[in-house]
């Protein structure tokens, strides 16, 4: 049996937990990085870190993730000390090392949380280090275990008020000594309990309070409830996680007169407890500082919305241009007016939906701060990271795609690009070593570039290396500078003599390139010896809606992405060349290009065979050019590309040049060509 990592009933919370905790840790990293750089940590920051850890501790415990909760607890303790005594002296670099280590461990754990194969990590070593660091900070106090609440009496006050309704039953729950966070356990337990009975009151009253956990472990948890089936409630209490014992407690015959204090407060607590038990398991909100005007939505809901809008656009097209309308005859004025209105609205809807999915690239950029910081620590290059245009908005899916490539490229820039400090000094470079990440739009593409002011690349060295690795495909003298630089992103190419932790194996960049190409992106390199290098990523703005030109071949409907089309033309007899081997070429304005007969390529019967009667389409992608031949052009349109069904996977449609298919306005289906695959076969 697979043992889930988190408590049963919490599965639906996992996404939220991952999202919120990830977000918090991201923010924590930012604070740590900033305060480390400024070399001072203000009380606001300390409080923020403390709160962050407290929240993570709580939500991790709620999920039943003891290890994360305990680690967060250790860090929280650390900051408890700093918060209480801001002047306490400690070893700063060591503290930051510990904090970053803790933050990384938590992040890792979150990444692996849904993978059943990865066991929960054991953080006890790190916790130990944090604890011993904390004891050093506290000095001699370390031996004392005392928490903040030292009010540990034997029992709660006013446990049985005089005016208590006799239907109210009281239960005492004692948690096992090993239970790490009894207050969190209690909260979960009470939430479950709330479903079978009405909880009137608990002792301690506020489970969220700082000392609640200690109170519970010292005095136990008392629950007052009204239940139709008390046995059921008791059973539930007994089976709670980490519960050592649960029993009903009778009101003592003579109870001491109640102190007045808790009355008002208790009322509030009843309400609170009720709220807590009534609410469906909502995660602990992160306090009031989140703006209420923002909501977080699951990405697949947005995907669904985008799909729906795309379908609406298509359906709208099929309604407005329905062939039935032709038979209606004369007066369609009102229909036409309404359809124009509808079209305007759907266009706007489409824009809005697309914009919902847009997020600034800064989310991807910010993560690089951390990469630079870590590398600066190790390599002592003291690199500054500068952002330009980080407010540029791109589709959420693009930001997710960007993370890995950016990481590789930034690492490369620091490791290979930027020289060691003494070399920089020797060369008289006075400006600080800088890596600049910039983002912007260029026509229909997002352009992200990473620029360093380091050593730049030596074409002669690259050439020699490429030659040694047998990567040359034409005479050395025919390579342009640009082509030489692009060796860097080819597989199995690394100019770094020694392999470092960060780069040098020559696998990174070609993987980056491949991953980008999967989503239609491109990676290019430029450089100037002595001045630095630029890596540029270009990704199409929208991944799903594509402009295509549809053509007909022997009755089949195929569509060529507009981005690849240079022009369409008719061919004259004299421009057609067939060489002795049967290869066919078309002359277009003094250029000779291979002719690809789509009918032949796709083994379609009945297509036009006479080159002067068909239509020629000049296509170009990634520097490769060819002329496609089809029977005729039917239309140009916007389509939503859908991947082929997995049923068709075995037939390698992509490799034969088909990217996917689309449902058109009239309900028919067209096949979208993958020009890169087709051109690669012929050019």
């Amino acid at each position, binding site marked *: 049996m697979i043992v889930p990592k988190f408590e049963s009933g919490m599965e639906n919370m996992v996404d939220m937990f991952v999202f919120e905790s990830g977000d918090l840790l991201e923010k924590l990293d930012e604070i740590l990085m900033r305060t480390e750089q400024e070399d001072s940590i203000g009380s606001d920051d300390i409080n923020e870190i403390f709160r962050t850890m407290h929240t993570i501790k709580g939500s991790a415990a709620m999920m039943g993730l003891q290890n994360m909760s305990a680690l967060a607890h250790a860090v929280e303790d650390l900051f408890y000390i700093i918060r209480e005594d801001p002047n306490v002296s400690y070893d700063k670099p060591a503290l930051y090392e510990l904090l970053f280590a803790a933050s990384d461990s938590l992040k890792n754990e979150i990444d692996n949380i849904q993978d059943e194969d990865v066991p929960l990590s054991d953080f006890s070593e790190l916790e130990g280090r944090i604890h011993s660091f904390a004891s050093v900070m506290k000095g001699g106090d370390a031996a004392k275990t005392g928490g903040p609440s030292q009010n540990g009496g034997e029992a709660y006050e006013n446990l049985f008020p005089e005016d208590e309704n006799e239907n109210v039953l009281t239960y005492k729950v004692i948690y096992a000594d090993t239970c790490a966070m009894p207050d969190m356990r209690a909260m979960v337990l009470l939430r479950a309990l709330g479903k079978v009975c009405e909880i009137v009151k608990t002792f301690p009253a506020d489970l969220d309070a700082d000392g609640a956990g200690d109170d519970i472990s010292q005095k136990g948890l008392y629950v007052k409830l009204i239940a139709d089936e008390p046995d059921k409630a008791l059973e539930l209490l007994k089976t709670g996680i980490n519960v050592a014992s649960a029993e009903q407690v009778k009101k003592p015959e003579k109870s001491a007169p109640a102190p007045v204090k808790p009355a008002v407060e208790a009322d509030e607590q009843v309400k609170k407890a009720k709220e807590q038990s009534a609410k469906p398991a909502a995660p602990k909100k992160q306090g009031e500082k989140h703006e209420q005007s923002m909501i977080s939505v699951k990405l697949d809901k947005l995907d669904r919305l985008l799909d729906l809008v795309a379908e609406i656009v298509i*359906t709208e097209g099929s309604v407005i241009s329905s062939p039935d309308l032709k038979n209606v005859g004369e007066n369609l004025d009102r229909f036409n007016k309404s359809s124009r209105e509808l079209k305007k609205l759907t266009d706007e809807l489409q824009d809005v939906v697309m914009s919902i999915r847009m997020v600034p690239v800064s989310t991807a950029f910010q993560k690089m701060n951390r990469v630079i910081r870590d590398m600066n620590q190790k390599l002592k290059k003291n690199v500054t990271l500068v952002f330009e245009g980080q407010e540029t908005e791109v589709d959420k899916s693009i930001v997710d795609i960007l993370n890995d490539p950016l990481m590789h490229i930034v690492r490369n820039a620091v490791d290979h690009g930027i020289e060691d400090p003494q070399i920089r000094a020797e060369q008289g470079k006075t400006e600080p070593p800088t890596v600049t990440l910039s983002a912007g739009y260029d026509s229909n593409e997002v352009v992200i570039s990473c620029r360093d002011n380091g050593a730049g690349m030596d074409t002669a060295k690259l050439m020699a290396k490429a030659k040694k690795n047998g990567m040359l495909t034409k005479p050395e003298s025919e390579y342009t500078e640009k082509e030489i630089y692009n060796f860097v992103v080819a597989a199995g190419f690394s100019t770094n003599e020694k392999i470092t932790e960060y780069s040098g194996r020559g696998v990174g960049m070609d993987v980056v390139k491949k991953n980008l190409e999967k989503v239609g992106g491109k990676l290019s390199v430029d450089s100037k010896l002595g001045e630095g290098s630029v890596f540029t990523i270009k990704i199409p703005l929208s991944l799903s809606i594509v402009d295509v030109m549809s053509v007909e071949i022997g009755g089949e409907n195929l569509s060529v992405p507009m981005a690849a089309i240079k022009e369409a033309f008719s061919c004259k007899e004299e421009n057609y060349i067939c060489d002795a081997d049967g290869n066919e070429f078309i002359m277009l304005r003094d250029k000779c290009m291979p002719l690809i007969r789509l009918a032949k390529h796709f083994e379609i019967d009945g297509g036009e065979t006479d080159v002067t009667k068909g239509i020629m389409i000049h296509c170009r992608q990634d520097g490769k050019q060819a002329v496609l031949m089809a029977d005729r052009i039917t239309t140009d349109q916007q389509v939503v590309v859908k991947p082929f069904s997995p*049923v*068709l996977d075995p037939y390698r449609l992509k490799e034969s040049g088909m990217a996917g298919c689309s449902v058109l306005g009239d309900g028919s289906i067209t*096949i979208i060509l993958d020009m890169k695959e087709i051109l690669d076969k012929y050019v």
Partner: protein
Amino acid sequence: MSEENEEKKDFSETGGQILSFLSDGRFFAFEITAVTDIIEIPEITRIPRVPDFIRGVINLRGKVVPVIDFRKKLGFPDGIYDDRSCIIVLEIGSYQAGIICDRVSDVENILPEQVAQSPVSGGTVKFFVTTAKKRISLLDPAVLVKGRT
């Protein structure tokens, strides 16, 4: 695959409803739980460079669904599909596929004692079902559509 194996056992033990259909004069069937639609044969868009038995794709309420010619897939002689022929749309895991058959016969309740396990494991036919009038081959949709795994 393990889950599907469990389902197989379930069926021979519990029985259930099946949708039977005719192809080349023989009876075949799917468990009714695998069937999402039975539709007339619409216009089918051919896909280049796929085997014969894949007739192409259809637009099923905005979804692009591949269609398999049952006769061709099982190597039966070509028959003429008429207006009683139809496409049975199956849901297999996360995707759909359509199967063109001569005609749909019936939805039948099958008792466990009518079911015999096929001696070939992992084959297109999972069980043989015997009813009063006929013998029906109960098919494994995943194997039919994607081949043996």
